[in-house]
């Protein structure tokens, strides 16, 4: 242990701790900007500088300076305050000052610091680069004039996701974070997962907002606005509007959406259950009749983009199932339209997703098997939060309402789709019972749960041992993919979610400042699963009905037409 003082307070911390860590122990808050709890130390913003007794010529950065025995740190001397404030003024003077128009207004680390350090009349003249925003992808918008060069986005894109779509070009004041080769984001390897949005302390990268498009549809009397809500959104929406995680019930959520003007509120959970039937049977078919193994899940569009970009020769291993969002889209304008006797051309299909890549997925040209665009618009959790705030709904007082019929029922298996390992666990619950024709003794496959990067399990299906793996975060997926490519993967089935934590940590979720927050959301998901009356997808009564009345059987002709798809290698010349 190392003994030191911070602002005169004695503290004892393990060898190798930084000033920042030691200060936290004694409740001293040191401001940071480039620092991120789940990333490597960068020490480039210099906002966390402190004074160390005996070292008058330089103020070390608290995030990178290791402590030593007898060290005396001062965190709030006039010299320290002057340095931090001047640095903030410098950063702000190169940062477009349209806080009022910014997507991160009141949710911005720089804005908070500017207030904490009472920046009033900045002595430095405002001087931004004046570079246009990059609207090239349907998912994300980059605003280089807001970038503070902290490089947190680069860290997450390179080290967590292993995509390396972002880097720094030029030097000095000309430095910029740019997509690879200085191209637009769409021409870079970007998979649109949106993890950079979570990493960004300011509004330099964000979701492509589509709220106005939605409002236009709501205002159109000829349109029937139908929405689906993804499993991970329900837990996070309460967080987005300032309530405790998961405290808003599905019924209140639905009621809120009706107030905003949605005509029908249904559930992606329904197609999550359906996915299990289709994907589970696809796996069984591949195991019995042959086909590319291991089979990979295909729910996560960021993951699909990654596979198409970096592993085009393994596309056959992807399940041909559309994601639950797209299954829902095609069924809304066929099955549901028929059931409700509404002309599909009048249906405006909205999906509420935890994910930025879903916006891209919905725009894929092949996603119109219903004869229309399957999903018309995708809103993230954050966008729905804005919609709610705009509408002034008091959720504490709002009475709940049931979800609408036919594609609104769901099971606990669908709920856990929101967490890493959830699709796998849901699939195992069904596959086991389909194959063995016996009740599963324990529904909880805890070995595939949690924030560990790669998880694995083995299930005995009446003598056939099925080995499965789960990866979340594309850097972890890469490890499994390289194994498959080398021909020594021991697995039959692999679940991949592009985002750390799975959909609960999706690019469209409330800004997540740490993995600890993702774990809290995961915990809430399993509580909800436990509370569901039905916890196995094949027992969902509406799923049974849709097979009886419409689809006939998993992997059948109609399923093939509406619920399955193909993947295409992305021709990215720079790779």
């Amino acid at each position, binding site marked *: 242990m190392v003994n030191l003082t911070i602002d005169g307070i004695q503290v004892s911390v393990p060898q190798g701790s930084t000033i920042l860590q030691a200060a936290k122990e004694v409740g001293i808050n040191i401001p940071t900007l480039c620092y991120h709890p789940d990333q490597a130390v960068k*020490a480039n913003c210099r906002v966390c500088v402190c004074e160390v007794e005996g070292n008058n010529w*330089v103020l070390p950065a608290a995030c990178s300076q290791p402590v030593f025995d007898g060290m005396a740190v001062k965190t709030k001397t006039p010299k320290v305050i002057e*340095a931090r404030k001047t640095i903030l003024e410098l*950063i702000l003077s190169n940062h477009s000052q349209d806080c009022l128009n910014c997507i991160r207004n009141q949710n911005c680390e720089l804005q908070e610091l500017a207030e904490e350090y009472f920046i009033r009349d900045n002595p430095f003249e405002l001087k931004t680069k004046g570079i246009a925003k990059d609207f090239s992808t349907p998912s994300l918008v980059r605003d280089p004039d807001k970038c503070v060069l902290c490089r947190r986005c680069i860290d997450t894109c390179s080290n967590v996701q292993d995509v390396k779509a972002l880097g*720094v070009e030029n*030097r*000095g004041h*000309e*430095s910029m974070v740019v997509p690879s080769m200085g191209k637009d984001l769409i021409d870079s390897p970007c998979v649109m997962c949106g993890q950079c949005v979570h990493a960004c302390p300011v509004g330099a990268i964000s979701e492509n907002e589509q709220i106005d498009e939605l409002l236009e549809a709501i205002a159109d009397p000829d349109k029937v606005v139908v929405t689906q809500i993804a499993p991970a959104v329900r837990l996070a929406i309460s967080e987005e509007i300032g309530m405790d995680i998961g405290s808003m019930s599905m019924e209140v959520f639905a009621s809120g959406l009706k107030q905003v003007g949605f005509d029908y509120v249904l559930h992606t959970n329904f197609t999550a259950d359906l996915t299990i039937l289709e994907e589970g049977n696809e796996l069984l078919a591949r195991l019995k009749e042959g086909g590319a193994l291991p089979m990979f899940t295909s729910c996560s569009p960021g993951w699909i983009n990654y596979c198409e970009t970096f592993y085009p020769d393994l596309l056959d291993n992807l399940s041909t199932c559309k994601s639950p969002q797209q299954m829902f889209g095609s069924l809304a304008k066929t099955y549901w339209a028929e059931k409700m006797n509404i002309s599909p051309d009048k249906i405006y299909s909205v999906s509420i997703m935890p994910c930025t890549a879903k916006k891209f997925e919905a725009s894929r040209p092949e996603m119109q098997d219903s004869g229309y665009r399957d999903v018309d618009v995708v809103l993230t959790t954050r966008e729905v939060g804005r919609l709610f705030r705009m509408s002034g709904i008091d959720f504490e007082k709002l009475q709940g309402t049931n979800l609408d019929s036919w594609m609104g029922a769901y099971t606990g298996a669908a709920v856990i789709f929101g967490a890493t390992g959830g699709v796998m666990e849901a699939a195992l619950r069904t596959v086991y019972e389909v194959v063995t024709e016996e009740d599963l003794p324990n529904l909880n496959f805890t070995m595939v749960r949690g924030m560990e990067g790669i998880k694995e399990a083995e299930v005995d299906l009446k003598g056939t041992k099925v080995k499965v793996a789960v990866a979340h975060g594309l850097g972890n997926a890469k490890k499994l993919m390289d194994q498959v490519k080398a021909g020594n993967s021991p697995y039959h089935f692999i679940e991949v979610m592009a985002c750390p934590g799975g959909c609960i940590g999706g690019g469209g979720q409330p800004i997540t400042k740490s993995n600890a927050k993702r774990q809290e959301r995961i915990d809430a998901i399993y509580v909800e699963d436990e509370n569901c009356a039905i916890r196995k997808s094949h027992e969902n009564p509406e799923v049974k009905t849709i097979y009886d009345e419409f689809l006939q059987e998993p992997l059948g002709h109609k399923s093939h037409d509406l619920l399955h798809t193909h993947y295409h290698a992305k021709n990215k010349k720079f790779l």
Partner: protein
Amino acid sequence: MAEEMRIVLRNYGKINPLKIDDYIAQGGYKPYDKACNMDAFELIQEVKSANLRGRGGAGFNCGQKWQFAHQAQADQKYVVCNADEGEPGTYKDRMIMENDPHALLEGMAICGYAIGATKGYIYCRGEYPQVVTILNTAIDQAQEKGVFKNFDVEVRTGAGAYVCGEETALIESLEGNRGEPRYKPPYPPSEGLWGKPTIVNNVETFANIPIIVEKGGDWYASIGTPAYPGTKILTLTGDINNRTFFEVPTNTTLREVIYKYGGGIPGGKKFKAVQTGGTSGAFIPENLLDTPIAFDSMSEIGAVLGSGAVFVLDETRDIVDVACRISKFFEHESCGKCAPCREGTMRIYDLMTKINGGKGSKSDTALLNKLGRVMSYSCFCGLGQAAPAPVLSTIKHFQADYDAKLM
């Protein structure tokens, strides 16, 4: 011209740098053999007793640095020579490499033995292609002759960035990354090139080593000032009669450098200021010229010895204009990694342009003072910490020149 003391440049003009036999005939590579017959720890003690301090600018004790690398446990260690001489007005490393390349190679090989490294790299400035050829010839001859027992050197060229003279930025560049500094600790002697213990020394530092081994640390420590012993190669530029380079003991004063060795100011003009240590050095006025060029005495007057560049200005020079041009240099050379340097160098240049153009006010010099002060203690690396010095020192010592330009 006053007489020099040539230790590092002892072979200058006496040997053909392209012939290893010439170097050997002057006693070259004997110190290396002697070093290899010593215990590595004793060898380091010898270098420590010389009290040789890095000649690149930071002035860290060389033997102590070697000791850190020697003590570090690793399967591989490296010796890296910083030959990225990018400091305007400085060309002493070029002089050494062009005229006596083996003195550098020998110094590196001795370091390799001392710390237990078998591999060395010379990171050479991209603008010195002729030097690369000479170094490669020298390396080939040394290999052919088999003078190195267990050591191998390669030359790498930089793509031309001032910041790559900073040792960790140099290491990043050697590894093939963007040339940007790393935060310290860990310091290179414990984690350097490819994460392995690495000694990065400047050309002049390495070139001092053979003679220290040959004549002993005590002999070396008796030259110049005790706290910064030995000699220093200076390069004189600007308004000076002898625009040249020479090697003098470190107790030589600035006045001696300018008037004895430099032959004074041409055209009978008066002295105005001298900038030492390179572009990031402070400007020194007349009343401080009796300061010895040694590291600590220079620090005491807020100046640096740095690379040994001495840039003299006569009375006709517009010092505000000079400081303004220097601030443009730093605006261009900041790597852009840390906020205070990235933004600050640009703001200094902006404010200096305003003042130099007759549009500045007192509040601009006040802002420059604050900004410069903050940069000097909060920037990530030495570049940003030193960049404001020319501006701060001219505001301090030549206030009348600024006042004359203020609105």
